[in-house]
């Protein structure tokens, strides 16, 4: 579904990604973790071309994202993305946030889009807030709207870039619950997160990154049971026991 082939990226002369090669198969949930500044967010943003990279290739559903023939906008519309800081559009009502892509990108009619939006809001437990503005919702509610907005495009895969890092502790679970539900339904997901509880519960594979490199890429059981690299062991000991 998503294949990373030797992806390397530089900011000027500073290398942020070094020969990253991995894959996310259909229906798979892959958690990407690692210390801050390790390139996890950069890697996930390369998947839909929000971050350009200089070397290597990423192939999504058979389409290379760096090929000239690829319609990047169309490809992006098929990949849902959830941001750390939600990025709802503050000047639009909640329901209009979810309608926008459906109408402008997929060309759905206003009624069809609104029906879809209301269904998704119900699913994330927020149908009562449809007519409010994002600023009137809590962080957890906003992030659930953001998930609904991404799902409205009927994506073939979902990318999560630290979806709970900007949330107050008591709101983290309401967002994770929605994500767990998505995972159990078989959605293909790539999730950058520090929530190891989430990784243990639903991840199939865990990728550990450090200094722009994929240091460890293992099945969940292996990663938590016996990480091979010293760096991963150190990281796990730091975030699991404190």
């Amino acid at each position: 579904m998503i294949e990373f082939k030797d992806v390397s990226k530089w900011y000027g002369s500073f290398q942020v990604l070094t020969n990253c090669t991995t894959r996310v198969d259909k229906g798979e949930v892959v958690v990407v973790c690692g210390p801050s500044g390790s390139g996890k967010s950069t890697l996930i943003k390369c998947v839909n071309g929000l971050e350009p990279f200089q070397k290597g290739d990423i192939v999504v559903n058979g389409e290379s994202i760096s090929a000239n023939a690829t319609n990047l906008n169309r490809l992006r519309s098929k990949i849902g993305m959830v941001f750390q800081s939600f990025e709802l559009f503050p000047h639009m009502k909640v329901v209009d946030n979810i309608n926008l892509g459906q109408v402008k990108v997929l060309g759905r009619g206003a009624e069809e889009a609104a029906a879809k939006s209301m269904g998704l809001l119900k699913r994330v437990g927020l149908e009562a807030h449809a007519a409010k503005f994002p600023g009137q919702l809590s962080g957890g509610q906003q992030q659930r709207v953001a998930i609904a907005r991404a799902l409205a495009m009927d994506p073939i895969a979902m990318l999560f870039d630290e979806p709970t890092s900007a949330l107050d502790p008591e709101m983290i679970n309401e967002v994770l619950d929605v994500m767990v539900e998505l995972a159990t339904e078989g959605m293909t997901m790539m999730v950058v997160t520090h929530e190891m509880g989430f990784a243990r519960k639903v991840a199939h594979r865990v990728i550990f990154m450090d200094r722009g490199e994929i240091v460890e890429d293992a099945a969940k059981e292996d990663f938590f049971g016996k990480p091979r690299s010293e760096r991963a062991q150190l990281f796990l000991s730091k975030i699991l026991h404190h």
Partner: protein
Amino acid sequence: MFTGFDFDVIARSAPYLFREGMTFTLTLTAMAMTGGIFFGTLLAMMRLSSHAWLNVPAGTYVNLMRSVPLVLVIFWFYFLVPYIGAWMIGAKQPIQVGAFWSSVITFTMFEAAYYAEIMRAGIQSVPRGQVSAGYALGLTYGQTMAQIVLPQAFRNMLPVLLTQTIILFQDTSLVYVLSITDFLGAAAKIAQRDGRLVEMYLFVAVVYFVISFSLSLLVKQLQNRIAIIR
């Protein structure tokens, strides 16, 4: 103190002043504002572009306009627009644009430079993540601008845009140099005909003050009403 003054001249000439003069002033203000914001927004988008062939001309234009006195620009355009127009369509004779359209074009192009700087700040006030969120949905650059960035930029900058419009409203009195009958021009004509310079210029000042001041009060009100809930 005011013995020897004849304030009746105001009442006598008011219909003419407002029907002829003020109508022109307001029409010119409205047209230059609309055109200025439209072209200003385009200039701002060009200036923020990463392509040198877009941002260099836009930057040069804005800086040039902002460093030249308006009166000069008015003169230049009044004399040059007929020739530029003729050159553009390949006519042999200068095109007769007329003082009205000449002033509309001048003010639109001059104000566009100022509105451009305001819109540039407005566009930059919208967080980068908003653009990413638009792109991630599959929106094009144009759609992201039209649906997400510009609506927020306008809202953030509305008070400043209106303040600039108040300045524009006052600046339109400079068309006086083209002997156009705007509000000031109309008053000047009456003042000279009737020999009532002090009365008329006092009245003109009061009218400009009242309109500008009420507009600035309106801006303050609006500022509180339209703020985006964050």
